[in-house]
């Protein structure tokens, strides 16, 4: 007989074992839970005569509760980081705190003492059920798996004016669904992105920027600022001078844009018409540029200069196979209707977003 049974014999109490008060109980006895974990045992028609201490209350749930709380805090932070939601954001935490604070007072006013006791017991039972070590461990395991295999990518514009769409796709996969970002630095957020503890590579495509690939690690996720982490894709405005423009007025004349690869040229775009030609992203011509052009034309608006300015101001946007990257060497050639090269310009792109390149006449020199 153990020590608890001996104590019960000395005090006249019935020993019910340490795993539930319903064991070895006479059929005419019922047990009532008490607030202190004491089970009061009595015969059906008798006043309570004996109380048995519920030793299950001795198993502390504090470590589990603490562990679960830590897990909740971590989950909350993770969700805020990777999903943009948080208990503090949604107000759920405040609701819980308020409920905890006001709940007892409300219950005290609404319920009888015995009913309150029953609720407390029920809550305790529920807590004990939830705070079982196995459950807490399972929750931790699930949380860790999620946190190590899911992450997020956030892309934000470089300035409040930036806006557009961004697509984030696993490397070597087809382009995914683009998401909008901006203006006012509103980010585009890709959540629940698959990754692994060692990171997974993703390609980020933003029109107007040079596509780049990044490794998405768990926990921290990926934060990309356009213009800083992703270089702007340079656009080029090829602007034929007035003489070259005059050739482009004739049917059969054309412009050819090529990328220089060593000594060779690979044609990437072509166009016709007496105007300027834009390759890359659509741009509004800055007013400063227009003023510079006017100065080039002698600073006077007349019939000739006005016609030229209008031709330069409204470029024809030529399609290019892929966005330009800094370092690209381009050559523009203008051919007359007779097939003679009458204009030639070349440029090496840097990081400027819009490069203005004049095509002077006299295409006799070698490109």
């Amino acid at each position, binding site marked *: 007989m153990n020590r608890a049974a001996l104590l019960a014999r000395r005090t006249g109490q019935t020993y019910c074992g340490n795993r539930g008060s319903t064991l070895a109980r006479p059929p005419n006895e019922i047990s009532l839970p008490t607030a202190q974990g004491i089970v009061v045992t009595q015969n059906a028609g008798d006043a309570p005569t004996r109380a048995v201490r519920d030793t299950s209350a001795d198993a502390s749930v504090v470590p589990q509760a603490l562990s679960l709380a830590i897990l909740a805090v971590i989950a909350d932070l993770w969700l805020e980081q990777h999903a943009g939601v948080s208990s503090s954001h949604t107000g759920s935490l405040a609701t819980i705190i308020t409920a905890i604070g006001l709940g007892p007072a409300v219950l005290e006013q609404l319920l009888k003492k015995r009913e309150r006791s029953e609720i407390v017991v029920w809550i305790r039972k529920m807590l004990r059920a939830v705070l079982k070590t196995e459950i807490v461990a399972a929750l931790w395991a699930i949380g860790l798996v999620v946190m190590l295999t899911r992450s997020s990518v956030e892309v934000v514009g470089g300035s409040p004016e930036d806006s557009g769409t961004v697509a984030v796709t696993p490397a070597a996969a087809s382009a995914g669904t683009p998401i909008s970002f901006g203006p006012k630095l509103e980010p585009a957020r890709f959540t629940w992105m698959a990754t692994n503890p060692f990171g997974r590579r993703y390609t980020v495509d933003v029109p107007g920027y040079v596509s780049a690939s990044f490794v998405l690690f768990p926990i921290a996720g990926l934060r990309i600022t356009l213009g800083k982490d992703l270089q702007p894709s340079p656009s080029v405005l090829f602007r034929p*001078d*007035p*003489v070259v*423009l*005059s*050739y482009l*007025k*004739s*049917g059969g004349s054309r412009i050819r844009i090529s990328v220089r690869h060593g000594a060779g040229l690979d044609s990437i775009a072509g166009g016709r018409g007496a105007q300027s030609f834009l390759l890359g992203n659509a741009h509004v011509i800055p007013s400063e540029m227009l003023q510079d052009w006017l100065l080039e034309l002698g600073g006077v608006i007349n*019939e*000739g200069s006005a016609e030229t300015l209008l031709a330069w101001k409204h470029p024809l946007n030529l399609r290019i196979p892929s966005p330009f990257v800094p370092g690209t060497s381009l050559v523009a050639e203008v051919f*007359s*209707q*007779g*097939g*003679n090269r*009458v204009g030639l310009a070349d440029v090496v792109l840097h990081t400027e977003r819009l490069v203005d390149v004049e095509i002077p006449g006299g295409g006799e020199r070698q490109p």
Partner: protein
Amino acid sequence: MKSSWWTRASGALVLAATTAAAQTRPLIAVKFVLQEALYRNEYSPQDVLKIERGVADTLAQLLSRRFGFVQFDSSGTAPQTLVVTLNRKDLGSGAQRHETGFYVRLATAAAMGQDRYWRMFRPIEEYLAARGTSAAFMKEVQARFEVDELESIQDLLRSIPISTQATLWQDATDIGWILPFRRADLCMDFETTLRIANTIRVGVDKRKDFRAKATGDFSDTSSALGTLRGNVVGMATDPTADLAILRTTPANAIIVNGVFIEHYHRSDTACAAPAAPQATSFPVAPGGGPP
């Protein structure tokens, strides 16, 4: 008066230094050069050649119509070539826009000749205007020649002798030259003025030019020059004092070096239906006008 002079022609003294046999008009090749880079680069080399030939053909036809005393040919070669060049007017300017126009020169095998600006093709405001297709451009160029502004051409042709032969003729009051052409050969009106270049051998050779005016057809059948009947006669218009040397110099010492047209007056009537030689009068041919 012409008529009174010619009525005395039968009794005139012929001082023929050179017998003026019938001969053909001088042949001049016509060439058009599209020199302006803006235009030349516009078209393929084949098209440029086509334009140059087409315009040269047009020029040859036009000039043949206007200047009946010369044969113009755009297809062959000749000792002299009339070169018409389309180029910018201000050749030394670095400006972006230019007036473009035509230059003319007379080239020989020995000398390229000096370009002289003839007339405008496009004003400076239209320098960068569209050129159009090669056919359209050729038409535009050809259309510029339809306007009668041939003074520069006339100037050049003044240096071309239509003949190196002429027969000096004179009587008591007048001096003239019988040309080796009939009026129909030259489609020439009797208002045309001539320059007769001579070498007069009086001790030393002396070059002397005389002015003359075509005033009629030679009609003297009585003299030894009867075979020249119907040829054009140019009467000297220089002052009498300047002509005195012709009277005092022996006929064999006067050598005609060339007959040049100073101001040509075309006569379509004379060209289409040659006038019959008239013995008694040499009326001014109707029609014609300044070239």
